[in-house]
């Protein structure tokens, strides 16, 4: 999986690409988790290029959400592909954070 991050305003915008499975989940959680160094972090992950998410990937997302919330920050995803979105809906993950249709809309909503 490819992971790229940039800072737009005070929001970390992470672009992930590939399959978020058992082989990629640890790197995904560590790499993105390392961005959470201050209080009230804002993290947006662009999922447009993520075409497969397993339960191991869900666990990695949950770890990040817990870490961001513990630091008083906000966490959101955008551009989630439809089958992956269905997985987030079924598991109740869609109720734990915001999922925006597009990146610009998400950045605006996060006040970035």
């Amino acid at each position, binding site marked *: 999986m490819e992971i790229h991050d940039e800072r737009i305003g005070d929001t970390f915008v992470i672009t992930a690409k590939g*399959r978020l*499975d*058992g*082989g990629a989940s640890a790197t995904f959680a560590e790499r993105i988790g390392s961005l959470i160094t201050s209080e009230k972090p804002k993290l947006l992950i662009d999922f447009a290029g993520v*075409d*497969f*998410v*397993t*339960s*191991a990937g*869900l*666990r990695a997302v*949950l*770890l990040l*959400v*817990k870490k961001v*919330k513990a630091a008083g920050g906000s966490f959101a995803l955008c551009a989630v*592909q*439809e*089958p*992956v979105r*269905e*997985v987030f809906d*079924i*598991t*109740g993950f869609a109720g*734990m954070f915001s999922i925006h249709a597009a990146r610009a809309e998400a950045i605006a909503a996060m006040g970035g």
Partner: protein
Amino acid sequence: MTSGPMRFEGATLPTPEAVAAFIENVTEFLDRNGVDMRASHHTSLVLSEILTNLATHGACRDRLAKIVIAVAPDRVTGEITDSGPPFDPRLAPEPSLDADIEDRPIGGLGLFLVRKLTTALEYARRNDENSLTFAVSRAGSRDSTGAGKDPRPD
């Protein structure tokens, strides 16, 4: 590993690397046969979760699991056979989905997803082997419940 126009047969060790490579082959097979993105994703996800579970809970990391996938007009069916200890994934406990984020358990989602994404899921223990058959409905299929369907590959 063999495959025909609408049928894919193969075997894999349930290690993370082998499963990832195997799933890639299955995804290519499904795409080649015109299976829609949703059904292709969910079939691959069901396979991935079952095979991963064999390695973590089935104590059979060093034994090949056999897989047959078949594409029908209204669904994709699959059969996974392994020689691990008896295990019916339909009986795995339900995870707690409405707990607060802080209390939300990290595990237990894999087999839950398998049950939710399939329209049919059957288990049998035969000849000291586990046999799990499943079906995932395809886009445009009038049958969205799978009720009464035999999920075994045709």
